[in-house]
């Protein structure tokens, strides 16, 4: 496939192609609907014959995430993908990686829960992703793509952020973005880093000790509480830097907006249609789409909150991000929630009705 060619593919396929192209060293995963095309595409593309990337179907999600831990400890660019129930199984490993400060990419093409739930799209893993999921005081850098193009683009970006901050990063997508096909221009090919490059860029990695170098130890365990507090403080300081520097969002028709929708991922796509319909009916609505769910665009929402009469948090869940929006605006403006549950995606017209209720 030529470098700049426009092609049509599913979001899940775009993740797989982008991983090969950005110089990913290894993928470890276990199939689950609606993300199985990631592993299927990798298997069909056979990158082990071209770039040398390892693609391995593990025996479970628990095994996958621990393989990712092992690969990341050696400074390799490694990833996994799954969907909600599978991501739940990975939480222990994710917490360990955050504690051991290991960079890796985890893709969640989420589906409706709780439990085994449904295979249809849902955004009900917001809390799990941005508030913890696993144990301990940690954060996941979280990117929320709203198109197939962003599925492709965010793979490289997520790796870049993960390595810059030595922290796992997640792409939080859903079945709609994973399963739909759209135009996409895949990122250009980047070669995998050589062992020398890894040793230079990741001096912390367990790349094999030579000469007098101090041994690198990758662990999240520290039984001395004083030391463990210092580890936590160092990690927290890193999180403050990420919150300062890495907030990403898209603003859409907010200049004259009297009402604001805050929505991410597929809900943000629906929001744009809602805005078109509402504006035809004379209601000035705008959209703030958080691209990073953590760090959350708190300041931007606070600023927009001062200009509008009301905010609608449009989420395909029972109302999770609304808590972060309310914290951002400190209750200075009414914030309402609308969403559908269990794999049902809200249709634009029903959201327009919610906006109308806010104007009354």
């Amino acid at each position: 496939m030529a470098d700049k060619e426009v092609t049509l593919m599913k979001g899940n396929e775009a993740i797989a192609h982008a991983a090969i192209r950005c110089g990913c060293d290894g993928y470890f995963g276990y199939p689950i609907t609606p993300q199985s095309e990631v592993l299927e595409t990798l298997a069909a593309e056979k990158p082990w014959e071209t770039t040398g990337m390892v693609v391995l179907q593990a025996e479970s999600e628990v095994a996958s995430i621990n393989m990712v831990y092992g690969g990341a400890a050696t400074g390799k660019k490694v990833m996994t993908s799954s969907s909600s129930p599978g991501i739940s199984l990975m939480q222990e490993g994710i917490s360990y990686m955050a504690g051991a400060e290991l960079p890796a990419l985890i893709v969640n093409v989420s589906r409706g829960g709780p439990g085994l739930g449904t295979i249809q799209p849902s955004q009900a893993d917001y809390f799990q992703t941005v508030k913890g999921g696993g144990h301990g005081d940690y954060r996941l850098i979280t990117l929320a793509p709203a198109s197939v193009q962003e599925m492709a683009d965010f793979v490289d970006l997520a790796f870049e952020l993960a390595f810059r901050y030595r922290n796992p990063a997640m792409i939080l997508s859903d079945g709609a973005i994973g399963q739909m096909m759209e135009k996409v221009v895949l990122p250009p090919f980047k070669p995998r880093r050589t062992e020398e490059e890894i040793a230079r860029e990741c001096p912390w990695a367990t790349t094999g000790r030579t000469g007098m170098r101090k041994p690198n130890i990758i662990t999240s365990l520290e039984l001395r509480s004083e030391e463990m507090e210092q580890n936590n403080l160092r990690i927290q300081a890193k999180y403050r830097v990420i919150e300062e520097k890495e907030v990403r969002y898209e603003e859409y028709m907010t200049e004259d907006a009297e009402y604001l929708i805050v929505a991410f991922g597929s809900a943000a796509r629906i929001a744009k249609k809602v805005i078109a319909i509402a504006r035809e009916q004379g209601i000035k609505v705008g959209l703030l789409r958080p691209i990073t769910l953590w760090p959350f665009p708190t300041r931007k929402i606070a600023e927009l909150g001062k200009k509008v009469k009301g905010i609608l948090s449009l989420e395909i869940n029972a109302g999770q991000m609304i808590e972060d929006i309310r914290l951002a605006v400190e209750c200075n403006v009414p914030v309402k929630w609308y969403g559908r549950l269990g794999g049902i995606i809200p249709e634009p017209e029903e959201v327009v009705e919610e906006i109308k209720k806010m104007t009354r």
Partner: protein
Amino acid sequence: MTHEIIISGFGGQGVLSMGKILAYSGLMEDKEVTWMPAYGPEQRGGTANVTVIVSDDPVSSPILSSYDTAIVLNQPSLEKFESKVKPGGSLIYDGYGINKPPTRKDIHVYRIDAMDKAAEMNMIKVFNMMILGGLLKIHPIVSVESVLKALRKTLPERHHHLIPMNEDAIRMGMDIIREV
């Protein structure tokens, strides 16, 4: 110009692949396209539907409340989507799968007996391309040339000898679609 279409029928009728070829044809004309399947545990014999949006502008929501055109290939699909056609929009149905025809008067209703024709001509495998031909007759969203280009691009080389049969099916569909 934006055209929002739902194609719905039984699994195995080629609903999803027809939508895919339509989307790919749009891509051949540099249009913006989105193909959103109602994916699920459905298999042959179950229901299947796909939303295809072909537009000159970036596509917002891949999920819609109403459609410019609904193509329904069985009774449950008709019952589900007749009410969701925009006033003035189009509803295309295959006579074979429908025993209670549509009743709305504020939309254009077209009938295409593609299933019967395909069986008669021993062309069951390209039944969906007949339907696509019918759609392109009433709404030339993309050109037939672009469809053929899309087929050349998406079909593996070993199946390229089937492209003329697909073209025949498209032309046949254009021929047999009738406004009711």
